[in-house]
């Protein structure tokens, strides 16, 4: 394998119903930095049906080139078809790095592609960098288990690949009118050769919990002791008009459902205010909330790691502090009408 042949940073562009996933725009922002450092092109790879019109957005968000596969066979995401397009395109144009959103689709596709290439794939990356002279991708993620980060490398293969968590990287401000090169590709795939078929897509109308869109999040941890104790978190959230978040241990204890879980295996959130109540502050939790505007931690253990990440810390018992907090907020609300 001659590494010299591999050039450029690619981002797999996830799209649905004519819209680019926000994680893909974030990755164009992150990819732009890597590409500039290496002095190479940043390209998007866009696969779907009737998606050509999305290229404009991709250029505005930083792509120099977009490779497009726009064919009816790509109407629905399927591992087999998308994988074949990506493998073919990679073989032809030889990128040095490919980034995917760590969404179910991104992970599904990247895992399959990595096996066929073959190459290394780093999952759920939260920090990215590249060695300027060698092009070695430095993909970092919370290391399994401990309160540490690990940088993972793929020295022997190209392209190097990583899936990257949503909401961790920042999209560039779009530059209206910025243009780039569209490279239209086609692949000959026959529907009857494809072993999977999407029979139906069912949208669920139940209002989904989207804590990643909330401005205020009140998150609780194992320190609340029980399901009953955890209700305190709901009460404060309600008072503030915020959403409820939780640590993984709380979700595993069954006090609240997984969509509320903040962290590496939950959602990444960036609210204006984040309350961490009875949460110790394990790295897997921290990576999901550290970019919040203002972090307030309440924990009875002064040594709890969460205090290293918060802006304001209250050392105290949640069951003493939070009720006062609720009461005082209620007063302030009726007095100042600051909060809705």
């Amino acid at each position, binding site marked *: 394998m001659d590494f010299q042949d591999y050039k450029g940073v690619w981002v797999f562009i996830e799209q649905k119903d004519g819209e680019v996933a926000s994680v893909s725009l974030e990755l164009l922002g992150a990819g732009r930095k890597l590409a500039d450092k290496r002095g190479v092109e940043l390209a998007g790879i866009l696969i779907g049906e009737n998606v050509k019109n999305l290229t404009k957005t991709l250029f505005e968000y930083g792509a120099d080139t977009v490779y497009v596969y726009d064919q009816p066979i790509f109407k629905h995401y399927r*591992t087999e078809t998308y994988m074949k397009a990506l493998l073919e395109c990679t073989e032809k144009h030889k990128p040095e790095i490919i980034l995917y959103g760590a969404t179910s689709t991104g992970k*599904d596709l990247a895992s399959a592609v990595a*096996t066929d290439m073959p190459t290394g794939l780093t999952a759920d990356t939260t920090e990215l960098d590249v060695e300027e002279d060698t092009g070695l991708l430095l993909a970092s993620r919370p290391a399994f288990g401990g309160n*540490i980060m690990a940088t993972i490398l793929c020295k022997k*293969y190209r392209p190097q690949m990583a899936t990257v968590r949503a909401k961790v990287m920042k999209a560039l401000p779009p530059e209206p009118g910025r243009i780039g090169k569209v490279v239209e590709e086609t692949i000959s795939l026959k529907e009857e050769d494809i072993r999977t078929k999407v*029979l*139906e897509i069912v949208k669920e109308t139940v209002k989904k919990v989207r804590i990643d869109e909330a401005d205020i999040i009140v998150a609780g941890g194992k320190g609340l002791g029980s399901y009953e104790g955890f209700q305190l978190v709901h009460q404060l959230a309600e008072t503030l008009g915020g959403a409820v978040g939780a640590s993984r241990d709380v979700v595993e204890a069954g006090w609240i459902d997984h969509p509320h879980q903040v962290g590496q295996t939950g959602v990444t959130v960036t609210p204006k205010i984040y309350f961490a109540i009875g949460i110790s502050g394990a790295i897997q939790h921290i990576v999901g909330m550290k970019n919040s505007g203002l972090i307030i931690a309440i924990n009875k253990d002064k040594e709890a790691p969460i205090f290293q990440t918060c802006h304001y810390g209250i050392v105290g018992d949640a069951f003493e502090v939070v009720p006062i907090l609720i009461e005082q907020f209620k007063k302030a609300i009726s007095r100042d009408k600051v909060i809705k």
Partner: protein
Amino acid sequence: MLHIVACIKQVPDTKIIKMNPKTNTMDRRTAPAILNPYDAHAVEEAVRLKERYGGIVSVLTMGPPPAVSAIKKCVEIGADEGYLITDRRFAGADTLATSYALSKALDKIAKQQPIDLVICGKMSIDGDTGQVGPGIARRLDIPPLTSVNKVVEINQEEGYAIVHRKLEDGFEVVRSTLPCMFSVEKTINEVPYSPLPNVIRAARYKPHIWSVDDLEEVDIKQLGLKGSPTIVSRVWAPQKPAGGTFLEGNPAAQVDQLLSVLLEKKELFETKEEI
């Protein structure tokens, strides 16, 4: 006869694990080893399919010898056979090398009894990548179906399966040819307490244990650390954002200080449109 193989992994129980407060790392010695919780759902689903359609359920794991206890746990859930591949040459495998080794073991299992379905968990709580399932599917050249949260139908005679795959805003109904691979969500089922006869059987059960040499056509270079393209180059403590200001005094005083800080920044409370 339907033959379903669930791939399972033994993992340290991160919930009970103790942290070393000095190094801020996990003290693995204190962690009891358990069956990866996601894989319990994979086995449970396999057992339910067996009850629905008849057939046998095998479980396969790669790991050190104590992983036998994870296999026994699966027998309690209702698995019929268990296979452990264990060898120092497997050690240090990343997802690519893991899926390679497992696919070789699956080849061998299939020689005894052809496999219709491979079921994996969504992810392992220690490896935490969700990459091994699709990796196995690619190596066996069978369709990977990830995020499966319901199995609608398995039709062995006509050679297809229909499942629900979870999407962000609902689900899709997908039909695939058999054999194929599912990786399942936790929500697919609930794992009940094991029936006593299974527990008794599990206590006596002895799994098949294979080393590299028991597998066929294995390229040693693709195993373990050597076969792993990804390497951990550096482990580091994340840069800690400057520690916060502690609010002093009794709870009432602490709350007072916090409120005065917050109420000064009214923009914090200007919400976007209702969501």
